[in-house]
């Protein structure tokens, strides 16, 4: 080994002194000095360092980081010469795994140990860590946004202590992967991962930054980390916060059963996309999105803690199981046109109403009931619209009943929630051609009551006091469910009925179904899945927007937002990046050539996006669980990757 010297103390071999700092890039850190030669192997150097430090510790995770070259010296059989290391090299002997804070799509933070030396393990280890998040290749990491002001401290779930069983798929224990069931803390963490978060505070929503233009939407995409370089190389420090997001909008084989975490996080990302107006939708669509976020329905009640407030008492219209269930009562009815005032009873007349099977009949009075009704309506195929204002004690059911001649409108006004819930549930079932004997009747009634009780405690009221002591803080604030622009557009009491209306179509969905439906509706938006970049097309004198989606590139006019041209990946022959002039050149079929330079983000990010989508499109065919990481890197990595 190096360090032979004469009796006089002069070194007689070609050895020289190498100083290595111990720790993470801290110049003040302790350092050791070794005597080495150019032929010394990295492995030997590591051994010497440990000997020098002379401390009992598990050093297995430690490796040498060469600061100037921004490179890990991981090839232990390489010599210093081969790496080109001389005495002036600044080397750090530190752990390869360091804690980072990962901000998940649901905007919760998680502290975990991430590899700072291997570019892909951060992402690829997620399935094992979270379990139930297959296809990690769709995810990637974003640098944290530069903060202007201090954000409030958020709760951080700590997963640094979790020990994973190596190599094998996580074992399920008590409905969650075994490594989460160690402590109450990790259990809570798993719930955070796999269950949707409660609606955000509307105030917070208003203060979070929202993109106001396409240009704003390009900002996000400048922050993606490079997947072919390790965290250390990209200047990430221990303890930094990174955002984990679904980067590629191509969700392969989404399966609620095997992917609870993936589904939930995807849902959360979709929700925040909508709430923060990263993607636009229409009013009607927003109401559906809002309704899908509302806890409700048999499967969703437990989650939001509305149990206490559901009166479960007289739900069934009939005690006897054999009788055909029917509803009969005095109700106020309004026909033809809409009632004049919101809260008045003007125009309503009281009738004796009989609801049997799917048919609604009404009579002047109860005595006339055996005779001919004033009107008889078969509700099958009709539209049922709730018209409710809980704080105003208005419980109306608007019926749009189709007939060969057209539609007739009818308003039923109920006295209280109980009555409303029973009749409403009956009407809804009848509109689908089912009767109150249907097994879903009771749960329908419950879902309606649950929703009403949410409303009662929430922002639906204008200065009305909540009713009863069971009104808790868990009430529904409709503002937490919609994008801020709807907060400005509607008063809460206008918004609630709209959401209620949309809710009735989804009230019966289970939590998972609702999430899936949410994701599907999100995917159906015209602007879904487009990542925007500001670019300068070759030969053009102004900046334009390039949209990258999973199947196409879109050239968009920056000022107007109109689509100028679309190219599909399926017609793409090849693409090249000229790293020197930061230009991406793409060739399509029929000799169509496109070239642009990237303005808002590095061209490496654009390149990786395109390559990533090409890679993901190959999954269809292979369909195996095994990912071809090499192919991924080939397609997404730059020239340095080779």
């Amino acid at each position: 080994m190096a360090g032979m010297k004469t009796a006089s103390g002069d070194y007689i071999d070609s050895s020289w002194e190498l100083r290595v700092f111990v720790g993470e890039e801290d110049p003040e850190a302790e350092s050791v000095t070794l005597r080495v030669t150019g032929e010394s192997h990295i492995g030997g150097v590591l051994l010497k360092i440990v000997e020098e430090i002379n401390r009992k510790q598990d050093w297995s995770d430690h490796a040498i980081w060469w600061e100037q070259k921004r490179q890990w010296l991981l090839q232990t059989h390489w010599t210093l010469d081969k790496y080109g290391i001389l005495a002036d090299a600044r080397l750090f002997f530190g752990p390869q795994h360091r804690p980072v804070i990962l901000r998940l799509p649901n905007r919760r933070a998680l502290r975990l140990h991430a590899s700072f030396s291997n570019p892909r393990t951060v992402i690829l280890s997620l399935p094992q860590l979270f379990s139930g998040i297959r296809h990690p290749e769709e995810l990637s990491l974003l640098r944290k946004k530069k903060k202007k002001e201090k954000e409030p401290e958020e709760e951080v779930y700590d997963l640094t202590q979790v020990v994973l069983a190596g190599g094998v798929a996580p074992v399920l224990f008590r409905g969650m992967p075994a490594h989460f069931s160690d402590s109450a803390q990790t259990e809570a963490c798993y719930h955070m991962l796999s269950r949707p978060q409660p609606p955000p505070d509307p105030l917070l929503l208003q203060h979070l930054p929202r993109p106001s233009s396409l240009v704003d939407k390009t900002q996000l995409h400048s922050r993606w980390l490079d997947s072919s370089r390790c965290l250390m190389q990209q200047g990430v420090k221990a303890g930094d916060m990174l955002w984990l997001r679904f980067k590629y909008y191509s969700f392969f084989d989404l399966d609620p059963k095997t992917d609870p975490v993936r589904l939930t996080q995807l849902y959360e990302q979709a929700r925040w996309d909508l709430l923060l107006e990263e993607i636009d939708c229409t009013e009607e669509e927003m109401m559906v999105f809002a309704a899908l976020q509302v806890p409700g329905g048999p499967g969703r009640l437990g989650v939001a803690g509305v149990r206490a407030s559901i009166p479960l008492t007289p739900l069934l219209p009939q005690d006897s199981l054999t009788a055909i269930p029917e509803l009969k009562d005095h109700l106020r009815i309004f026909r033809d046109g809409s009632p004049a005032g919101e809260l008045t009873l003007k125009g309503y007349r009281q009738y004796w109403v009989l609801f049997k099977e799917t048919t609604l009949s009404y009579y002047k009075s109860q005595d006339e009931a055996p005779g001919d009704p004033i009107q008889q309506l078969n509700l099958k195929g009709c539209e049922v619209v709730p018209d409710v204002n809980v704080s105003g004690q208005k419980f109306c059911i608007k019926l749009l009943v189709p007939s060969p001649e057209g539609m007739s409108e009818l308003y039923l006004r109920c006295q209280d929630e109980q009555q409303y819930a029973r009749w409403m549930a009956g009407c809804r079932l009848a509109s689908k051609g089912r009767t109150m004997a249907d097994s879903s009747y009771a749960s329908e009634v419950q879902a309606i009551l649950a929703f009403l009780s949410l409303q009662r405690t929430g922002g639906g009221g204008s200065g009305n006091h909540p009713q009863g002591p069971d009104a808790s803080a868990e009430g529904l604030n409709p503002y937490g469910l919609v994008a801020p622009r709807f907060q400005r557009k509607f008063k809460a009491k206008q918004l609630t009925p709209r959401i209620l209306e949309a809710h009735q179509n989804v009230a019966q969905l289970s939590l998972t179904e609702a999430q899936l439906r949410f994701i599907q509706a999100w995917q159906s938006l015209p602007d879904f899945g487009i990542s925007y970049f500001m670019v300068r097309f070759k030969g053009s004198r102004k900046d334009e927007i390039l949209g990258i989606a999973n199947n196409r590139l879109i050239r968009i006019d920056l000022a107007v937002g109109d689509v100028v041209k679309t190219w599909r990946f399926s017609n793409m022959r090849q693409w090249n990046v000229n790293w020197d002039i930061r230009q991406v050149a793409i060739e399509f079929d029929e000799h169509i050539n496109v070239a642009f330079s990237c303005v808002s983000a590095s061209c490496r990010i654009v390149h990786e996006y395109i390559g990533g989508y090409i890679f993901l499109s190959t999954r269809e065919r292979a369909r195996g669980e095994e990912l071809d990481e090499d192919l991924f890197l080939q397609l997404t990595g730059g020239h340095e990757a080779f």
Partner: protein
Amino acid sequence: MGESSDDIDQMFSTLLGEMDLLTQSLGVDTLPPPDPKPPRAEFNYSVGFKDLNESLNALEDQDLDALMADLVADISEAEQRTIQAQKESSQNQHHSASTEASNFSGAASLGYGANVTATSVSQYVDDLPPPPADPVLDLPLPPPPPPPEPLSQVSLVVKVHMDDNSTKSLMVDERQLARDVLDNLFEKTHCDCNVDWCLYEIYPELQIERFFEDHENVVEVLSDWTRDTENKVLFLEKEEKYAVFKNPQNFYLNNKGKKEGKETNEKMNAKNKESLLEESFCGTSVIVPELEGALYLKEDGKKSWKRRYFLLRASGIYYVPKGKTKTSRDLACFIQFENVNIYYGIQCKMKYKAPTDYCFVLKHPQIQKESQYIKYLCCDDARTLNQWVMGIRIAKYGKTLYDNYQRAMARAGLASRWTSLGTVNAVTPAQPCTGLKTGATQPNGQIPQAVHAASAVLEEAQRQAETAKEKRPAPGNHREPAAPRAHPAPRASLPPPPPVRRSSDTGGSPAPPDDFLPPPPPPPLGDAELPPPPPPELADSPPDFVPPPPPPPVLAGDPGSALPPPPPPPPSLRPECAGPSPTVAKRPPMPPKRHDNPGLPAGGGSGEQDFMSDLMKALQKKRGNMS
């Protein structure tokens, strides 16, 4: 009585066989001299007959009559001779399933359109008094194999108008989907079974029409028609039906960049089409084609049209309000698809002063008359119209549409080609039919279906192939549960269900079969509660099926279409018919008695009349023998 009915059954079946045979040969100009080949006839007969069996029990006499009459109507004079010959020669052959492939090609050119509508909704009650035995019911059927279906099943006899102006009647039970009915029609008409064949409903009054989607429940759709409706069901080829799957690029790659209304369809190779379809229909959610542009909207209750900029989204049709931009946030919702169907508007230019004739219409399926709730939109050209209609169907039906197409493809026997496209594993054969409109889910709600094994497709294909060769005995064709072949219980007791639909009707005790042969069913109408229904041109059952069906006998032809077979004589008239029949028996046959009957629409071809009289005569004879 059993005996007699057997005979009659035989006759009936023979007749049916003849009719089929003749129908087939209709397509060929020159008919070879009736060289009745019994076996062939038999075979055909069994095809036709199977359907009958399916819901035989539910049938009323009148309905049967109607059915028979319709069937008869298909026959031309030439056929008569055959029949004659056959009567003597081939009485007993009817179950000799002959495998002979007949000149089927000729038949293919006959488009058959179906039309009927009809009527029988009957609830079968076991303990009814022996129904006026309609001999036909007792046909020597192959022993009822399958277990009985729920007895309360509802069936309609539907008259389907073929595109050659003929009609065919078939039983449609309440669980059959349009796909099943198409399959039936394929068998009956020997057409080429390609995917463009569709059931098509037209509303002459509103001048609108549309395809039945293959997953739609036919009885449910028909139940929205009013009793006196002029609506018709057609069986025809429409290439628009699945155009998107044949040339997806015309719908999905409508490059917004270029504004030109190029009529040229862009070419695309099969592989790209396939990947485009897969991308659009096989993802987590279906992609609705991006579609936007200025359309004319008819203003409510007026004949004026306003031009607006409309956009199609998965959630509905939107328009750009005045002074706003077409960004999502500014859009106003025009209509959502949950409660409406889409129709083509016909000749709106004339009827409503539309700017062009390329109109589409959105309305709730139950609306049958002009109403402010019907929305009319008008496009500049046919291409745009087709894009909108298809786009809306995709938005409304989502993946179901694709599943339907794949099933239709499989049925069309293109399985091999399909396989080569590599999409086989995506094929999802439609589920067994149910009475519910399961298919009508919104696209967003579609959860990708588990992939079904390719074998299903192959099986379908195979089946198809066999059918094509006509080698296959009819009974094998249907797997749907919907086809109850027989209800053993009722059978046993022999009585064909009383014609009566309602229990009240049962009061009219059926005459003992022996007395008059074609036992007069109690006049359907006569009963106290029901005023005799006016002779509806198209009878349809009331939506809930509760009300009495329109008088079956009458129901037949729409006034509009001249052709079709007069409806069967009302049962009550039957005896009458029987009387005269002997005289009629001679050829040239006299004008059909049917015409004499009150309430019958005129208009059968003379041949048909002859045939009818023939039948009567035969019946008479039987009766004579028996007694």
